[in-house]
């Protein structure tokens, strides 16, 4: 293993560990899970559209919470390190700025991957829990209500006995618990009878969440680039602005139709987040094709690399 690779692993690993220990990470991930799963229990008047609404809401929560998490994580790991001065010690070692920058991005990306995984599991559960014919899935609800006890009590006991940090332990346990709940509910119907594995869960949700995860990685690239200069409030605000502008980019381009150059530039600069919004595709019996995901991934990679280049340029010139 080369020294460079070891350095990269060390930097990214430390950043990821630090991010997992942040109370804000804990709150954002768990709130996303709670909102995703509880929405179907609250909406029961849609006359046949409950599952659609549950999935739409879940995907929207994933997008927004993921965006805020990306912005917060990027600033927490990069901007705050610059501000506190700990970066000086790192740069007194033989570590290049490019490696440092990419390691931070990798840590944020891995955190978002974990977030997307938890969100995917929660979305699968939300779709399963959505009432059909005004009947609720009591088995699922009981599992959901039991999950905080299943997660927090062991995490608390571990903290009590071994002083292991409560926050990352809880997150890890929640990921495991959600996975277990999905596996259990995919083999049981609403009456608790055994059925063929996977028949009670809408697996089309997974590629949809993956597509959104790719969008979040794109936003993470933007966030880490912004975090090289801006603090958390400004970064998150700009990300929210980009989200809004990205979602209405077609409308903006229409407004600028009389000025083709401006419209073209706008379309190039703003991320085309509409191509990452999978909810419409999932309506009725639609599904996301591999080609669509591949196309989105290529776009995100190209855009993300461009943004990271800009971000690194800003970071490279930064003086401490």
């Amino acid at each position, binding site marked *: 293993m080369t020294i460079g690779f070891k350095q990269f692993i060390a930097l990214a690993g430390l950043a990821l560990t630090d991010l997992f220990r942040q109370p804000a990470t804990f709150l954002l991930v768990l709130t996303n899970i709670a909102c995703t799963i509880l929405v179907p229990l609250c909406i029961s008047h849609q006359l046949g559209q409950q599952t659609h609404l549950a999935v739409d809401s879940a995907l929207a929560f994933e997008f927004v919470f993921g965006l805020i998490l990306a912005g917060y994580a990027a600033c927490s790991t990069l901007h705050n390190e610059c501000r506190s001065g700990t970066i000086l010690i790192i740069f007194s070692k033989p570590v290049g700025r490019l490696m440092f920058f990419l390691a931070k991005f990798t840590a944020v990306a891995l955190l978002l991957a974990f977030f997307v995984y938890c969100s995917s599991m929660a979305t699968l559960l939300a779709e399963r829990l959505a009432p059909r014919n005004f009947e609720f899935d009591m088995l699922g609800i009981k599992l959901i209500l039991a999950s905080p006890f299943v997660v927090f009590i062991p995490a608390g006991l571990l*903290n009590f006995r071994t*002083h292991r940090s*409560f926050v990352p332990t809880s997150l890890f346990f929640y990921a495991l618990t959600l996975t277990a709940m999905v596996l259990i509910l995919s083999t049981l119907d609403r009456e608790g009878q055994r059925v063929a594995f996977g028949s009670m869960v809408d697996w089309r949700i997974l590629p949809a969440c993956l597509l959104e995860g790719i969008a979040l990685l794109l936003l993470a690239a933007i966030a880490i680039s912004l975090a090289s200069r801006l603090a958390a409030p400004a970064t998150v605000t700009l990300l929210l602005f980009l989200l809004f502008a990205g979602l209405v980019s077609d409308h903006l381009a229409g407004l600028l139709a009389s000025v083709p150059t401006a419209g073209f530039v706008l379309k190039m600069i703003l991320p085309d987040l509409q191509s990452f919004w999978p909810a419409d595709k999932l309506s009725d019996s639609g599904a996301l094709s591999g080609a669509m995901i591949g196309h989105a991934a290529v776009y995100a990679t190209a855009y993300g690399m461009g943004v990271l280049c800009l971000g690194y340029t800003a970071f490279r010139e930064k003086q401490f």
Partner: protein
Amino acid sequence: MGTQNGLVIEARKLTKIFRDFWHRPKVTAVHGIDLEIRQGEIFGLLGPNGSGKSTTLKMILGLLHPSSGDLTVLGKPPHDVAVKARMGFMPEESYLYKYLTAVEILNFYANLYGLSGSLKKERVEGLITQVGLTAARNRPIGEFSKGMARRVGLAQCLLNDPDLILLDEPTSGLDPIACREVKDLLLGLAKRGKTILICSHHLADMQDICDRVAILLNGDICTQGTVQDLLINPDTLRLSLPAPPRETLSAILDYIEQETGRRPVVDHTGRTLESVFIETVTRHPSTP
């Protein structure tokens, strides 16, 4: 000022235990110490890192609550606001507002002390001059060097002409000349009846100015007393005399060896590096 018995700070079995989330004791930072600091003295609190100096200081400042024991400052509980009107504190790091200039920050703290009008102006201007920041008075603190920020820190703790002054590493980050000035300042304050409590690792500085010191280790006071008493070794003497001829010196040494059973050690007296530095800098033609 202080209590009837002239004690400015009085601690009896003062203890501070930091606990974890489950309320189990995690660290006993201060372990039942007894401390008495009298009016007009300069008291030094020494100890290695993690010995409990800062924790003790923070309890005296009312930033931390003692887990047990009694603590009075100027005859009152430390969190009493009236106590703070007569106290000045200079922390180890300059936790100042970086977007304010030196004058603005002193004016702000003066307002918190309730100073106003001509008295405030007089004090602020006087302290700016005293700490040598006249040229940089209108620059933001964020542009100051560490030493300059420390001077602002020192100035703000003297704004209210306090009866009790608490200093955490006051000479840290200062050059030897500035160090000397700070020490002279503190000695001057003590002569005026102020009580000074210093936490520092600079033992030479503490030896220079402190009347009494206490050495903390693992939350306990293991040694306490006047500097004089602590430093004196009553079993030995040091003589200073003009250098005699070789034969005379040898005879003197032989006689002492005969009387005491041990041959004395002889070397030339010298100056301290501090005095050499100050002399060199002050005498240099480029020094104004």
